[in-house]
């Protein structure tokens, strides 16, 4: 068990492409840290650099107090779970899990004892003689975990370990990995592009974009106080709605409607007053938009909107809307453009909502939940 400390880590490829730029991270002993970001943001590269599978161009990396920059992977005291699991198809589950012990020349009895222990923890005992090809996705995932656990490493590195599983199994394995990590108490760095995994699994989440660290924080704080429009848009599903507006006195004006802001908004953000008379980006999460015809929406100001489509999920309705305001792109290259043709906003309504596709409605907005960002830098105000 150990701290993992990254200081000013950079990765530059031959063509001067900078995959990782000045990455600073402190992963505490026993912490579960998630590295998240859109594809190509450098999160896997960062993990592979920690593992030693990728050279570090500059910066320092310490695992358990030891500088490991020039060490080969095997000396770094880490174990890695690969996206593909990298299970050897010609070996049984037992042989796969015991592989590192076999390489280290551990006696057979010791190997058996240790693998049996791990198989018990992971409920793999009955599968020890099977080959990976005969296992289900979830079982393979557990074997990959077992192979990492057998070494009792200082840190676990996991590279999108759930991305090959179907949705239901993913939910189950998410919980299994989280509880296993708590039980073992091993420092874990977990890479994913799935912000739901990021929010539900980690003690803290580090958001990367274009090789640059955007924010490291607990899932809750990341959700409630994103440092910039990118984090705001990336964390949360459906994404936060971001629009351009102009601040005049206490009023936030978009194209044809205005919303009166409460004093609290300015008290909480002293910087907001300086945007008086200027453009500002404002964001609102889908759950802070309400159907004004329902009880829950009565107390808020309303703006006009047109319903373009509805996804009824049973517990809620995801409502795609068009409001008369200019949408702002958060900068997430993976963002599904569900604002395609006619819609530019998404709301989550209670299932009691009776709005239908094509309807012109009054949309209730909880202005106390607004987020504000600088239109140039996209930094939070």
């Amino acid at each position, binding site marked *: 068990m150990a701290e993992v400390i990254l200081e000013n880590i950079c990765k530059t490829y031959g063509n001067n492409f900078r995959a990782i730029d000045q990455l600073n991270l402190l992963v505490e002993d026993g912490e579960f840290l998630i590295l998240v970001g859109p594809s190509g943001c450098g999160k896997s590269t960062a993990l592979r650099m920690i*593992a*030693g*599978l990728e050279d570090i161009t500059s910066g320092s990396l310490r695992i358990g107090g030891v500088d490991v920059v020039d060490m*080969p*992977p*095997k000396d770094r005291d*880490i*174990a*890695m779970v*690969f996206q*593909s699991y*990298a299970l*050897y*198809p*010609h*070996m049984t589950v037992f042989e796969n899990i015991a*592989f*590192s012990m076999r*390489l*280290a020349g551990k006696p057979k009895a010791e190997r058996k004892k240790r693998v049996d222990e791990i198989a018990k923890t992971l409920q793999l005992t009955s599968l020890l003689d099977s080959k990976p090809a005969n296992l289900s996705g979830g079982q393979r995932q557990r074997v990959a975990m077992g*192979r990492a656990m057998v*070494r009792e490493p200082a840190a676990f590195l996991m590279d999108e370990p759930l991305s090959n599983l179907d949705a239901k199994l993913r939910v189950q394995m998410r919980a299994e990995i989280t509880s296993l990590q708590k039980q073992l108490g091993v420092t874990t760095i977990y890479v994913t592009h799935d912000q739901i995994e990021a929010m539900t699994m980690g003690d803290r989440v580090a958001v990367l974009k274009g090789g640059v660290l955007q924010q490291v924080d607990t899932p809750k704080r990341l959700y409630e106080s994103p440092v910039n429009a990118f984090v705001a848009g990336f964390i949360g599903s459906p994404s936060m709605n971001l629009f351009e507006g102009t601040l005049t006195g206490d009023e936030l004006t978009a194209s044809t409607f205005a919303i009166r802001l409460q004093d609290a908004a300015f008290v909480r953000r002293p910087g907001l007053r300086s945007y008086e008379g200027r453009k500002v980006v404002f964001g609102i999460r889908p759950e802070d938009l309400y159907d004004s015809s329902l009880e829950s929406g009565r107390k808020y100001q309303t703006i006009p909107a047109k319903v373009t489509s509805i996804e009824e999920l049973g517990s809620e309705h995801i409502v795609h809307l068009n409001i008369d305001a200019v949408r702002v792109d958060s900068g997430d290259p993976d963002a599904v453009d569900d604002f395609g043709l006619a819609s530019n906003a998404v709301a989550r309504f209670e299932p009691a909502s009776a709005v239908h596709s094509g309807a012109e409605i009054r949309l209730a907005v909880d202005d106390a939940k607004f987020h504000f960002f600088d239109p140039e830098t996209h930094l939070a105000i």
Partner: protein
Amino acid sequence: MNRQKRSRHHRLKRAVAPYLYLSPSLVIIGLLMLLPMVTVIGYSFQNSAVLRRDPSFAGLKHYQAIFADPVFWASLWHTLYFTCMSVVFHMTIGMIFALMLNSDRINPTLRNILRVLYILPWLFTAVIIAVIWRLLLEPNGVVNSILMQLGLIGSKIEWFSSPETALHAVTFANIWAGYPLFMVSLLAGLQGIPKDFYEAADIDGAKAYQKLIFITIPQLMPIIISISLLDFIWTMQVFPLIWITTGGGPIYSTEVLSTYTYKLAFSSYNLSQAAASAVIILLISLGLTLFYIRYQKAR
């Protein structure tokens, strides 16, 4: 009624169609392979086959004659030696070159040049290979002169014309000619092994030889077995290379089953006995082929 008829017609068409498509190749195989094979088997049981218009039945006489012939046993042994050595070295050399060509430690440009160089022997026909090696291994050829200059040999060796070295020399030439097939197949196999396997092994602390033993070779095993079996079947039947370099001599020292059979047929004009010898080769090849097919099915 009409509809029922039409549907039956349609079903019949569907059932027959695949065989219609297959029929041209079946006819060609029948005419060019099965017919000659059956004819040769027939010859092996006749006296003076082909030479006489009404050959008499000979029973197993020709087979007995072959099994009593010491030259047959010598050529069987030479065939085995020639084949086993060829396959083993084809595989070893092919594997070493494939590993080299797959290594990212070698400069990519150099790798491409090497790839072309290594594959060259494959481009030559057996006749050209035979001529090249006859020239190189001539008593006054390049090989002798290099070996003498290096002080490895004291006097010129007549590689192809001395009974001690001739079999090794033809085997060597055949090894040189045949390794590229293994190299190319194994290289394709190597490129198909996921990189993750090696990275996972790196993290687990595997040394280079351990990665070779525990990952590379097991992953290549299906290719190694298939190609080795095929190579075994092909090499057993090699004729032109030996015929042109040594002709089976000197004093039968490079006689293999194919040259033995050829000589029976076209030097001694003992076509019936040659047919019997050919049937023996056929049976050995058939055994190996069945083994190969069973292996392929088992996968």
